[in-house]
């Protein structure tokens, strides 16, 4: 009965909310092109600091950010501070999970897995690892980047956990990767502050848009993010699994 009342309330509230919000945003029609006063125009044409009207793939050199993937250029260059914060959020929740579960987790006997499953997992594991690495090293050229790449690395470890009952990750080593990747990220930022005058400023030539070796500090930071995210999610996953078997 209570649920019906809540349901009626929420439906009524939805109607009011949708009507109210339709004053602020057009709910049914979309723009034909980007509005001219949006800051995104600057990101797309890479003309925030430099005066240029067009970026051409494989031709433009020394742009203010050399990433062919515009979303990446926003994440790692224009709004890099957000990304530092985002990495910190993940770091914090990994710390929180490990504080909550404590370090008592000894793996109890898991169900023995079959030979085929174990072998297949061992074959797929390096493939996942390589794909994850590919994703974060090519983040400035293709869809992907540090976060999906890191998640894929964590997934590869999860696979080993599920498929092999003897597999245990060394959490201490993971913590080391996590801490040093974070430290290096901040240090890159401080290097930018010292050399360029701005925190997280780009201090490496950006090269030609579309080349693998291009876009300054983006690949560097994305590798660090990839490692850090991979380490963090792996540590969260392993904490959960240890918790699962000990409880």
């Amino acid at each position, binding site marked *: 009965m209570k649920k019906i009342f809540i349901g009626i309330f929420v439906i009524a509230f939805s109607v009011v909310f949708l009507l109210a919000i339709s004053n602020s945003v057009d709910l049914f029609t979309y723009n034909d092109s980007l509005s001219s006063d*949006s800051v995104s125009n600057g990101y797309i044409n890479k003309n925030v600091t430099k005066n240029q009207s067009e970026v051409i793939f494989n031709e433009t050199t020394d742009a203010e950010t050399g990433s062919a993937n515009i979303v990446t250029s926003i994440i790692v260059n224009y709004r890099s501070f957000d990304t530092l914060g985002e990495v910190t959020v993940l770091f914090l929740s990994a710390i929180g999970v490990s504080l909550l579960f404590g370090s008592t987790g000894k793996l109890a006997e898991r169900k023995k897995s079959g030979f085929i499953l174990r072998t297949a997992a061992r074959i797929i594991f390096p493939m996942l690892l390589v794909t994850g690495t590919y994703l974060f090293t090519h983040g400035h050229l293709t869809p992907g980047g540090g976060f999906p790449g890191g998640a894929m690395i964590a997934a590869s470890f999860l696979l080993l956990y599920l498929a092999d009952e003897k597999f245990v990750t060394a959490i201490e080593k993971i913590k080391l990767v996590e801490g040093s990747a974070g430290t290096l990220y901040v240090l890159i930022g401080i290097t930018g502050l010292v050399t360029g005058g701005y925190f997280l400023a780009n201090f490496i030539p950006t090269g030609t848009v579309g080349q693998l070796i291009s876009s300054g500090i983006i690949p560097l930071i994305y590798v660090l993010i990839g490692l850090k995210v991979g380490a963090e999610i792996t540590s969260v996953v392993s904490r959960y699994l240890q918790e699962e078997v000990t409880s």
Partner: protein
Amino acid sequence: MNNPVLLIVIPLLLAFLSVIIKKAGKWLLLVGLLFNTALAFFITTGETIIGGFAPPYGINLVVDQFTLVGVILINTLMLITIVVSFDLVGKYSIVLLTALAGINGMLLTGDLFNLFVFMEITVIAAYILSAQAKKYHHTITYLVIGSVGSVLYLLGIILLYNLTGSLNMADVAAKLPLLTTKELLVPVLLIFIGIGVEVKLMPVSGWVKGVYSNANRLIAPLFASVIAGTALFVFGKLFVSVLPVSDTLTLLMLIMSVMTFVFGEFAAFNQKRVKNILLYSSIGQAGLVTALFISGLVYAAVILLISNVISKLIMFTIAGAFTEKYETDDYESLNGVFVHNKFTGIAFTIAALSMAGIPLLIGFYAKLNILIGFFQAQNYVLPAIILLMAIVEGAYIIKLLLALWAPGKEGQVSEKSFAVEKKQLLSVKNTIICLIVALVIIAGGVLIDITEKVVTDGQPLLGDQSPSFTISQSKGGE
């Protein structure tokens, strides 16, 4: 090297480092706190661009006089809180360092989305810290309400982005006058509610009781003065300088704030536990501060905010010590506790009296400013409510102080007619720190002119036109 970005980055760096160097965690926390507090005094007003991309494209940190007061106050308070309860830090040093970074980020950032990110950092740190209490199922309530708040805030800023094409606070503020009230209604209300969760505004403050009342000597003052203070500073920045909106919306938000104020003060009156009294009083005061910000009385709001967080720091620390030493903070079973701990009692009393608005203390000056401000603005409804609530507030504070000072109580027989046994509440070091903080409350009230000069530096806060009123000024006007 007095770049304000270091206030955020150095604690983060130390947090990452303390994962590698595990044993040094506590000391790195101390280094970070000392560094931040020292640096906060050297920050100058201005704009700092991050990444080399000028706003609105990039993210910037904005330091104005208002933020400067916030940064100095909050960093110092956090240092004091943690130094007082350094023995309770334990394994939470990394979380506290990240919280320090998040708090400074919230205060400094000039970008709406960046504010969201730093708010999440602070809030997640707060979730983890609140789980230190034994009854941590309240943390789930906090986590749920907090997440809903951030979702609503995010929806609000994305609607603003859709309307203005920008996320930078100054840029958004410049473009807002072109928009109608109708268009702004939903985004501004969503942002209001989203921030309101941390500010502890009424409909979304359901988490406060469970979390605050079970927090210990470290966490309670950290939440009540450091994090709540930060949230209020952010609220002021957003609703005075970024989203100053039309009358309809202002009225709506004002009603919510005043309701929070009235509810908080009345609820505090009905409580038996010291922490509950304090937490409801925090809710009430937060409501008053937001009401002042919305009415545009920035200077009065800042003074009230400062006096309130300093008082709450002392009072929550001592209330935490009650639970620690006597396993209860019900004031009826703590009769005469301050007779054993005179100096602790004096610090607590000064803080409480300042909150009640006794002359010569900074709280009195804060209240006076509010009333004069409203009278000059020809507003007589709010002062009436504030005066009425001041009586309620005074009543429960006097009741509380009498109970804590008066030894023994009829029918309660115990050693030498004291209702509680003799125990040292705070160590000598902590008592001295509390007394020094209490001295600041007195000094801030007695030397009003200096207080005003320190807070405003001779300029109107947030470019606000409402003048600040010192006693000398108002006398001159009569």
